[in-house]
């Protein structure tokens, strides 16, 4: 008896949709085992993680606030991954977007500048993220450098740049030496759209982007180009699509979206530029992108789910005394299971009973 992977004639649409569900189920089972090993009741723990946050309007809003940057970054990344371009550095692009956008908030701070500041900040943030993403993109097209390594390494550079700025030139003089800029002026702040929480206008931008990218991918020739380059590079070249231009394009778009998410986060929920503005959004967004089938609508659902694990994880930390890092373990596990289950889209598992060799 042995298990064999057998190639399917056509990709299975059913499995493509069922795979994330299966992966979530497997993650829940593994999580339960972990909780048992930690001496906690798994049922209570899963309730705290996944149900409790949904029972309260404040935490529901918090889920949307957390999901917003995840979804925005992930739809950008999905374009890269569909085109077989491996941007792993969205975290860095997020931070640089936050920095370049904040620059405007810092220099206009207290000058009584008009309402143009916030839109200009958003543009600056997107531009900053896109430019930061150009570094690995051009290194790849010019020198053939592996974009996985370069984009990932630039995350740490971005982190240090942010750190330097808030400890040095941009530090709030009245900030008691804390590494943070002064609180942004109201004209440099993303407005809250619902009372009793932090739900801000950035969520609306994210939803709009989901629609725009969904239409772009499904209907436009650019979306087709992205999918062909990823699925069959030689056929794409035959079609007249340049994979090099697409590397630049997808990096630019994903960098811009990550940068935009960064400046919205800083100008919205956080309100100042400081270290630790991201709980790893740029990395978690990779999981969101794959869990969401690299499809904007799927990513919206996946983003909400992962936001739930962030909120639930905080809840579990407080009420059950489990370490916050456990959440990251589960997120990583989820990606692992999704990728494993995805092999079933093109292959089926079959149990083969080996026949005895005829004498």
């Amino acid at each position, binding site marked *: 008896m042995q298990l064999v992977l057998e190639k399917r004639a056509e990709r299975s649409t059913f499995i493509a949709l069922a795979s994330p569900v299966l992966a979530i189920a497997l993650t829940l089972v593994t999580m339960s085992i972990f909780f048992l090993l930690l001496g906690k009741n798994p049922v209570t723990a899963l309730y705290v993680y996944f149900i409790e946050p949904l029972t309260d309007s404040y935490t529901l809003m918090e889920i949307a606030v957390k999901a917003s940057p995840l979804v925005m970054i992930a739809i950008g990344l999905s374009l890269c991954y569909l085109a077989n371009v491996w941007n792993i550095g969205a975290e860095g692009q997020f931070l640089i977007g936050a920095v370049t956008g904040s620059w405007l908030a810092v220099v206009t701070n207290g000058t009584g500048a008009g309402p143009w500041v916030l839109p200009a900040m958003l543009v600056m943030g997107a531009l900053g993220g896109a430019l930061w993403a150009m570094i690995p993109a051009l290194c790849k097209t010019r020198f053939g450098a592996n974009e996985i390594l370069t984009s990932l390494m630039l995350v740490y550079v971005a982190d240090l740049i942010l750190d330097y700025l808030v400890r040095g030139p941009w530090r709030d003089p009245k900030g008691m030496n804390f590494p943070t800029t002064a609180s942004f002026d109201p004209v440099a702040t993303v407005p809250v759209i619902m009372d009793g929480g932090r739900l801000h206008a950035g969520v609306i931008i994210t939803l709009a982007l989901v629609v725009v990218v969904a239409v772009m991918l499904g209907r436009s*020739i650019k979306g087709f180009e992205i999918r062909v380059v990823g699925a069959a590079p030689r056929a794409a070249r*035959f079609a007249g699509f340049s994979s090099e231009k697409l590397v630049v394009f997808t990096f630019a778009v994903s960098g811009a979206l990550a940068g935009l998410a960064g400046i919205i986060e800083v100008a919205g929920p956080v309100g100042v530029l400081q270290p630790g503005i991201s709980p790893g959004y740029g990395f978690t967004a990779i999981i969101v992108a794959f869990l969401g089938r690299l499809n904007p609508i799927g990513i919206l659902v996946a983003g909400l789910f992962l936001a739930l694990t962030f909120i639930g994880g905080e809840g579990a930390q407080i009420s059950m005394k489990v370490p916050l890092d456990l959440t990251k373990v589960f997120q990583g596990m989820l990606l692992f299971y999704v990728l494993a289950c995805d092999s079933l889209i093109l292959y089926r598992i079959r149990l083969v009973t080996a026949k005895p060799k*005829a004498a």
Partner: protein
Amino acid sequence: MSDQGPVSSAARAPLLQAIGITKLYGTFLANDGVSIDLYPGEIHALLGENGAGKSTLVKTMYGLIQPSAGELRWLGEKIELSGPSDARARGIAMVFQHFSLFDNLTVAENVALGLDGKESFAAMSARLAQVSRDYGLPLDPKRVVWRLSVGERQRIEIVRALMQNPKLLILDEPTAVLTPQEADQLFTVLERLKGEGRALLYISHKLDEVKRLCDTATILRGGKKVATCNPRAETAASMARMMVGAEIGEVRATTARATTVPRLLIRDLSMAPDDPHGTYLRNISLEVFGGEILGIAGVAGNGQDEFFSALSGERIAPYEDNVIIDGHAAGNLSVTQRRKLGAAFVPEERLGHGTAPRMKLSENALLTGHAASHMVKHGFVDRPATLKAVDTTTRTFDVRKAKRDPEAASLSGGNLQKFIVGREILREPGVLVVSQPTWGVDAGAAAVIRQALIDLSSRGSAVLVISQDLDELAEISDRIAVMFHGTLSEPIAAANATREKLGLLMGGASPETATVEEVSHAAGA
């Protein structure tokens, strides 16, 4: 060529018998009670259109699949093959149509992976060199496979099979990529193997070849055996009739073609290859007139791929007037721009080059149609238009498929090729460049494709056909040029292009010295 080897007339006990082989895939009957007897010292042809069940039958004999019903008998004794290694252990070897080679490994490493023996790598390499020399199939064991031409890759498969010293050798369309001389050499090898008392099962679409080489032929149609016959007593037409169950329309040449101005002009094109082991193109000049089909013959790997990508624009030529399409200097233009000038291209590889295998046919229509076929409006894809293109192609070229818009990879080779060629022809291109239009395509589909090329040219288009199938070129071309080591010979009128003359040019002889006396000499080169 003797009719019956001495061994086969003496020993009339079958080596391998397949009795009532039935194979069900879900509800689809791939084989329906097929019986076949293979004798030692006999070359047995297996004929049938794509989808007739030939592959299923030979895969059963090679242990790759288990039959749903029926049995195999080896020397009269019932056997069950648990897998290919079991088949190989008994002395059954197979050369597949689709090569099972690892591109990043060397020739010797690939052969080592396919052998079950325990001999050392060095000894195996030496034996590989020996066997390849003995049978006139030269191979360098140390070369990496991705650098080899299709023809050389096939040689590896054949040598690998021969190294197992098989009692039964199954060959799936082995001559598709060979020159006539190479094919003749292969036939010599096969005759020799037959003389050594081995059984051979030979799958081919080339009926003339089967008539010439094979002692017995079994014909399949729709999973059932239609007949077992003596191919020498049949005509190619009568066998084709049995294969398709109807008359195949003869490809008819158009009469009185107006040859007007050159629509495709290649001027002194010299180009270095991308890959250091590719072929340099050297001073290629060629005129293809509207209303004619110009054939380019040549052994695989003599620069055809490089030439094709220079024409299609997948690679940009050094000077803009290296390639002129309908009077426009196009050497520096992209694929899309060349398509907009009215050019169309059909590459050799169907899956992965001509189509994205895992995308739907409508998306594959868009693949080349986005440039100039009104399928894109303001940057958005007109989906109904792409589906309509699929429907039109399906209707016009009789593309058979399970549903309206399946993935490209789910179509059979012949049907996918009809789709790809049809996709381009329906755009009514002024210039069409086709590489290997009918490689691995069944007789019915090949006739449809060739007729379509002829019809296109008779409507005034310039058609350039790169092919290794000389019969095909003879059938459809007006003039034929030969590619050798990146150079192109002067085209000769098809009427004067004898197999001998072309064969010599394919071996590198200059046209003046290409005389019949040198055939044997060049064939050995």
